[in-house]
């Protein structure tokens, strides 16, 4: 079984891009906690 209508046009279509999975966000560098002076405050004086 095929198509019964005569061919009307011939086109060239490029190969489609393969489906891409969404890229993952790079993990951020962990920021070390600032040391808190013993017996004092972390606030700058």
């Amino acid at each position, binding site marked *: 079984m095929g*198509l019964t209508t005569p061919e009307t046009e*011939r086109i060239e279509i490029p190969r489609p891009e393969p489906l891409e999975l969404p890229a993952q966000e790079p993990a951020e560098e962990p920021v070390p906690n600032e040391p808190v002076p013993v017996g004092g405050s972390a606030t700058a004086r």
Partner: protein
Amino acid sequence: MTEPVVGWRLWRLRGGRLHSWAVDYCWEPGENRARCIAHGRSACITSPGQYCQCGIWAVWSPPACRERARTAAADRSEHVLGLIAGWGTVAVHGREGFRAEWAAIRCLFTNCPGILAARTIGSSLFGWWPRGNEQAPTDSADEPGIDPQRMDALHAVAARHGVPLVSLRKAVGMGLLGEMGIPRRHIAEAGRLAGLMLEGDSLV
């Protein structure tokens, strides 16, 4: 044209694999390349041949697929309806469909194509489902009494090909057909086959 053409076609589901409707070929997951299987003459060097029927065919209109399935003599329970994307050299056959050099399955449908409703506008069997309503009817409402064995086989073959398996009704409601590049008039045809009446259909 830079985007693949998308059309409707039929397969026969046998032994857990999708067999071509017209020739002895078993579809592979991913890309499939056409080759000419000429009988009684030399095969075309490249497919789709210009004066041949070779190539991976699909039709633009879902009712055209239903008619092919309805008139087929073989067991209807093994018929499968789906969408393919075609590229490479593509022979366009007017408003009927195309023959492509390369193709990949995009989606399979749960509906038995040969027994889809041949409903007309105004039929009392119509459901009413305006566009914009995101609540799609369920598959069970779409195809009551569907053979569980057929569903299992469809799920397995869809998984093998890595494509979605949905009912026509759900595909229309979810906007899947539009996302796959099916024109609005053919989405409306698919909706009517699934028993839906979309906004813009006028009662007669």
